[in-house]
């Protein structure tokens, strides 16, 4: 009777715990910060002399760009803060030095007044040089501040005329600031050289490159990019890994970014309590020309340097990113206040820079860390050790039958013995 009462009490206790468990998660997250900064987009338009060329559906490139801008301004979502910057709009002269500084903010990044923005766009006439690099730097400045997503949409019809400042390097440096900025590029009737330059800029920041030859393509694409900026995206937290396990930054569950140079190894620490599972994944992005053949290795090591588990990946050919991940479930401990184990994550990649490509800043690295409850252990290969299939049925039937026969013989023999006595 006592055991029964205990059982009933236990069931009630379990029930209470379960109900509490079910009710709890909703309340637990109440204290989290709410809201995210408004997404910001800066449209950077090339207004250089070459925009006069009439080769987009029989109209000039400038006219096509103006129409596209008008349509995009109409379709821009409420929450997006949009700005417009021009390059080569003001200086018509031949002085390269002055021409290469010619970039201006046509409409400041902020809440959008459609009429005002459209009026500003209407005033543009194709004029000067194509200083893409300086314009990108200024555009990055326009977008400074706030914690929403940031995007530059660069529309150009000719490659940068302001060497030696390579716009591709500029883009990489902007990305290296860790402000989570993406540059998308659009080339109007591009040459192979322009294609290469614009896709280099895009790849340096994880953006996209599109070549445009028709009016509707331009409008659709710019609209799509502005819409994409409006999508809520988790913003990663910048961190800096150490070169040894001791002194590595301690990470909690979340999304992180860092930079890792070629041939470097980065360490991060995560505290894992008994009965918890560490899940970590890392992606290293190739933001510049790299040699084919690359890899990434993430190891979870103890503070003493013993490897627990590793994730590795290798590949070759064109890629944006190489990624891998690992899981480390830490066994439950009998001791209730057993300390958390500091697990070190060591990340290294085997990208190598193509000849003539700058190696600094390092490649962007994205790290996700999740610490969750540990999985239940598997005691058998099959679920609960249960069986399945015709062999199982055959064996069970045969065993049952044999047992029946033996039982029958036994009982016959017993009756016979009983009768003779």
């Amino acid at each position: 009777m006592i055991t029964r009462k205990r059982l009933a009490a236990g069931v009630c206790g379990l029930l209470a715990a379960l109900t509490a468990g079910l009710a709890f998660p909703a309340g637990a997250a109440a204290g989290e910060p709410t809201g995210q900064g408004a997404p910001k987009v800066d449209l950077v338009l090339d207004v250089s002399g070459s925009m006069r060329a009439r080769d987009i559906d029989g109209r000039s490139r400038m006219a096509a760009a103006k129409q596209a801008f008008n349509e995009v301004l109409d379709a821009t979502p409420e929450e997006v803060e949009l700005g417009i910057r021009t390059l080569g709009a003001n200086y018509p002269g031949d002085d390269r030095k002055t021409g290469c500084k010619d970039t201006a903010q046509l409409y400041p990044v902020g809440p959008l007044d459609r009429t005002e923005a459209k009026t500003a766009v209407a005033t543009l006439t194709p004029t000067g040089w194509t200083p893409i690099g300086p314009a990108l730097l200024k555009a990055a400045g326009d977008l400074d501040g706030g914690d929403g997503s940031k995007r530059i949409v660069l529309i150009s019809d000719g490659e940068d005329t302001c060497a030696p400042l390579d716009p591709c390097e500029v883009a990489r440096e902007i990305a290296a600031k860790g402000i989570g900025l993406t540059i998308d590029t659009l080339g109007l009737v591009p040459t192979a050289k322009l294609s290469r330059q614009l896709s280099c800029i895009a790849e340096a920041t994880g953006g996209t490159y599109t070549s445009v030859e028709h009016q509707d393509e331009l409008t659709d694409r710019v609209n799509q990019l502005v819409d994409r900026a409006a999508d809520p995206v988790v913003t990663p937290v910048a961190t800096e890994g150490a070169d040894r396990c001791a002194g590595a930054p301690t990470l909690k569950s979340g999304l992180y970014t860092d930079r890792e140079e070629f041939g470097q190894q980065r360490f991060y620490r995560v505290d894992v309590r008994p009965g918890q599972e560490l899940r970590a994944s890392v992606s290293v992005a190739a933001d510049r020309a790299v040699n084919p053949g690359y890899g990434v290795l993430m190891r979870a090591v103890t503070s003493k340097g013993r490897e627990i588990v590793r994730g590795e990946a290798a590949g070759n050919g064109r890629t944006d990113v190489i990624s891998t991940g690992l899981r480390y479930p830490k066994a439950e401990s009998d001791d209730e206040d057993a300390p958390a184990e500091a697990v070190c994550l060591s990340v290294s990649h085997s990208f190598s820079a193509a000849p003539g490509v700058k190696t600094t800043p390092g490649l962007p690295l994205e790290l996700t860390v999740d610490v969750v409850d540990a999985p239940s252990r598997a005691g058998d290969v099959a679920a609960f050790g249960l069986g399945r299939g015709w062999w199982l049925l055959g064996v069970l039937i045969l065993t049952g039958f044999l047992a029946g026969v033996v039982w029958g013989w036994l009982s016959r023999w017993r009756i016979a013995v009983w009768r003779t006595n």
Partner: protein
Amino acid sequence: MRAVRALSAALLTLGVAAGPAAADASPSPSQDEASAPTRAGTSFRTATEIEQGQPATASGSTGDYLYWSFPADTGQRPTVEATVKLPESHASQTWQIDVYDGLRRRQACQYGAQTRTAAADAPSVKLACVLRTVRAWSEPWANDPLPGTYYVRLTATGVATADLGLPVGSDVRVDSRDIGGSAAVDGSLAEPLVPGVATKPGQEREDAAVLAGLEPEDGWASGRWSDRWVWTAAGGIMAALAGVGGYALTRGTGRPSRVPPA
């Protein structure tokens, strides 16, 4: 008797308590069935979430890396199919789909044309990848597919510079075959392999950005049920019947002839 009553009461209450929780889990933060996604993300972080069986389209440019993510649960064997509509004139191009799991580990395709080269000016290229069956549990050192989020990356791996940026259209669809009890393994994960599951914002912030928010239609499977229960129970019943049969066989029918009447 009291224990039995308490137990059944507990089960009933549990059922009632679990009901709303399960119902809460199903509405997904993004698109529903009616509005199929018409765009794709450009990184793991921005991947567009799609449901299984939901056709997704996206327009992009040659050279873009397009990302989608979908949930896959225990016992499913997902098949990812992608069709890329290429521009009218182009050089020969190689396209590829890669599938990654929730830990961003590349998942092998059992079969299917994962990489295909389209001849110059070919109108489209079709790709497919059949994954391994998703298991409920695996050793941490293994790379087996586990229940959780899966990422699809579609890109051109071999492309001439002149073709970069040309507009392309893509259709992606994920379907899966239910493998059932033969793939039911012991053990289970505490949480599905969904990135950011440990930092999931609460119900109050439904519009907040998450790395992956979609769940299978009926929520994640608990992993307790499999048809192995039916097989094992049926085996037990048949063994019992065979036992009775075997017993009856040794007893013969009716009264043994050599036993004298009482």
